């Protein structure tokens, strides 16, 4: 294919859209798979789909990350069948809090912070977001917060795993011919 005739900017835009769509699809897949795993408590999930949010964040920036997260929560709930159920709101709260924290950390940290650090912070945000929503909407019970330390530990573990996975994914992608010449934001 004589791609030399294609405007590199158009190509880059197309590549970005394609990959973000792929990321979202993969995030939905992970979101769905999570329902098969044992969970710390009913409706709470570990948030592995955040790996793709991380990848989007580091490759394409905060806006892309938000797109992947929100797309994943909406589509994922449709696929699993939990749209507008408590599980959906917990997902939304967790995903939103995680993404907010991650984009903030990315912006503030710049070159000094890597996917692992961002992910760790995001995972903590994810757990806090879910618990806060559960408290406000479901169970107005101070005893709920007793779960917090255990949740956070789980979340941190998942966050680290996500971070390493995202780091590996980013290496793979950046090394791929399709990304040669790609400029990071």
């Amino acid at each position: 294919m004589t791609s030399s005739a294609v405007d590199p900017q158009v190509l880059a835009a197309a590549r970005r859209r394609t990959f973000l769509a792929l990321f979202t699809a993969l995030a939905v897949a992970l979101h769905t798979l999570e329902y098969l795993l044992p969970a710390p408590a009913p409706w709470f999930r570990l948030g592995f789909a955040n790996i793709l949010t991380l990848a989007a964040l580091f490759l394409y920036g905060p806006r892309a990350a938000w797109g992947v997260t929100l797309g994943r929560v909406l589509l994922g709930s449709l696929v699993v069948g939990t749209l507008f159920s408590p599980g959906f709101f917990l997902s939304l709260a967790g995903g939103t809090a995680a993404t907010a924290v991650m984009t903030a950390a990315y912006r503030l940290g710049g070159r000094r912070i890597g996917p692992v650090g961002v992910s760790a912070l995001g995972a903590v945000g994810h757990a806090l977001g879910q618990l806060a929503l559960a408290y406000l909407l479901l169970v107005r019970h101070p005893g709920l917060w007793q779960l917090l330390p255990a949740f956070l530990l789980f979340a941190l573990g998942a966050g680290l795993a996500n971070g390493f996975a995202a780091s590996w994914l980013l290496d793979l992608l950046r090394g791929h011919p399709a990304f040669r010449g790609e400029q990071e934001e």
Partner: protein
Amino acid sequence: MSRSRLFALGLVILLSALALFGRRGEEPGEFRRARVLMGTVVEVTLLDGGANVDAEAAMAAAFSAMAEVEARMSAHRDDSETARLNAAAGPLEVSAATADLLALGLRVAAASGGAFDLTLGRLKTLWGFAGDAPRVPDDMAITAALQGIGPESLRLEGRRVTKREAVLHVDLGAIAKGYAVDRAIAALQAAGIRHASVNAGGDLRLLGDYGGRPWRIGIQHPRNPEAVLATLELADAAVVTSGDYERFFEIDGVRYHHILDPHDGRPADACQSVTVVAASAAEADALATAAFVLGPEAGRRLVEAWGGLALVVAADGTVSLSEALKERVRWP
């Protein structure tokens, strides 16, 4: 390439294992609802049944069956059959359900030599257990309230009831709750449920077993509110316990409880609690009350002659039980 394929295979195996493992975390389905009826909390539990059973509908049917019994037989409602019977001077035509229940009550009354009585309405009102100002009535008032009671106090011809004396007041409290539980079980059966329990504040009946093993029914310890006296392993049976700790008041250090002995109009004092296992909750309810009044020996004989099983805690705390119950009891 083969390394990737191996990795992919490993991932698939891992995911399948997780999928299977994740599923197992779910509890064997117990579907419970509780509602306040008949002055107590009634809880219906359904176990994972067939897929073509509408659990919600069955649950609703069970509760409405019990509400219907309450409406018909509650002494507290002005429009119940009980209220009308109390007000009646001559014969009164009642519903088939009420007639059946009265017939059962009269049979237990006769079999127990009057230890169980359906016409203690005035006596109960006198003592005031149902309200917030219970008191010890004087002897004259008690004698007056006992007038006309006994196994012959009601004459039942088909669906027509005649009181021996017009002033008699019927109180179905010792049998109606059990009857309501029976109706609820019937409603569940009609809805296709095969494993369930209906527990009306301790008067309970079991449908089927607990998914492959018997239901484990704890018996409240009569003196220690936090302890269980024993656990019975049962299926398809009704269990009712009458105890002196359920409803009582204390004056000057003396405890007066709500199970009255029809012979002297005062709280029966031969037992601390009686647990009866029978085919239906209405029978178990009536028999438990009768046996409590009769005392450990006579009470157990009555229950066994009826075809039921009993566990009695005498006034001094000694426990005795029917032979056939011994293999089904687990002590703590």
